[in-house]
């Protein structure tokens, strides 16, 4: 009687072991088939928009005015998103827009581009096409020669297409 139960327990353990091996081997097979998942997991350093802004502008006040940001509402291809920054601030010799900055909040590195302008530009406007990793706010900051900062923010939806091709 005792012996019998012993044997059965041993067999039970063996079966459980077998089952475990099967499960493990199946999952390890899965990982062999999908090595890309592990690779895709390595992410570049991520910077937060607030830190980026702080590094660039310190605690200076950024006013939401004098900047117009034109972007699409929806972009199907995040690799090509048209962006236009327009400011109505003057471009005179001693008072002009010195620099335009473009940021994408949700990109790994939010800082996208900057342009240092001069009165010879006549107009503080810059159009560029930028990459967006995913749906995010796009942000333009304008810095004047007198040291003032102005900004505008717009949301852009980066979507996948409709058809399940």
């Amino acid at each position, binding site marked *: 009687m005792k012996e019998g139960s012993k044997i059965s327990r041993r067999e039970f353990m063996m079966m459980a072991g077998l089952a475990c091996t099967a499960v493990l081997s199946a999952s390890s097979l899965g990982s062999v088939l999908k090595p890309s998942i592990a690779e895709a997991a390595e992410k570049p350093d991520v910077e937060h928009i607030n830190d980026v802004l702080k590094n660039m502008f310190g605690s200076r006040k950024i006013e939401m005015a004098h900047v117009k940001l*034109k*972007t*699409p*509402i*929806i*972009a*199907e*291809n995040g*690799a*090509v998103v*048209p962006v*236009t920054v327009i400011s109505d601030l003057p471009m005179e010799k001693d008072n002009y827009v010195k620099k335009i900055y473009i940021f994408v909040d949700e990109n790994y590195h939010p800082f996208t581009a900057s342009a240092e302008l001069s009165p010879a530009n006549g107009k503080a406007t810059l*159009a560029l*096409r930028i990459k967006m990793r995913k749906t995010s706010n796009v942000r333009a900051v304008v810095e004047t020669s007198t040291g003032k900062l102005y900004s505008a923010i717009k949301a852009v*939806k980066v*979507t*996948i*297409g*409709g*058809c*399940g*091709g």
Partner: protein
Amino acid sequence: MYKNLFKIAVCLAVILSPLMAVHDVWAGGDSASIQEYEQGCTYEEYEKTYLEFYGNSTNEMAEEGNPAELMLDDGKDLYNTVDGSKGKSCASCHGENGEKLVGVAVKYPKYDPAIKGINTVALQINRCRENQMGAKPLKYESYDQLALTLYVKSLSNGMKINVSIDGPARKFYEKGKKFYYTRMGQWNFNCAICHVKYSCKRVRTNLLSPNRRHGDHWPSYRLKWGKTGSMQRRFRGCMKNMRAKPLPYQSEEYRNLELYLTYQSNGLPLEVPGMRM
């Protein structure tokens, strides 16, 4: 032994059957006459919906400059480049600035007795290269091929599209239309159900466009591709979306379809290169 082989075969068949279904080419459909759909919306309604939904950025970008314009300049250089065994360039026959080709592209696609079917600008350029220049045909959708097509078509820019479906072309127009209404692929769609019946409806964030202006701007720069491509590349994309097997460039079906769609754009000015989402 054989039993095992049989089992494996059955297993494979079961596993592969969905894949096979994907490759089910636009399964012909019966030859019953086409039941046309009522147009979901007019082009004007579509433009209004488009602006509400996407904003004006694509139009504004096109004004700021279209990357395909760079390609067009290369096309002009290519037009003047001597190639092939006969020592000729396109310009040798058609004039240095393409003056003899002005107004030609708006009549394409058209019936060509030499090929007993529908000829397109892209196909004709390659026929010219082979027959008149003794040069190699350009690979469809390659940079040079698109550039040259773009240049040749641009010579007729602003002129009204005037595609004829009279005479022998009629038969091919009807074939193109039939293709447009043929259910295909795993999704069992046809072109018309999206672009006629449900035009102006949204497939998630894609607004379905009515077919009135599908023929007036190719080759076109597409934001989604980040590249310039032809109308037939779009056909292939749509067929992939339907989970049907795309047909080769300049296949008979695609040439007929190009005729059918360009005819829907008759009367509109040709504007290449286009720019779109």
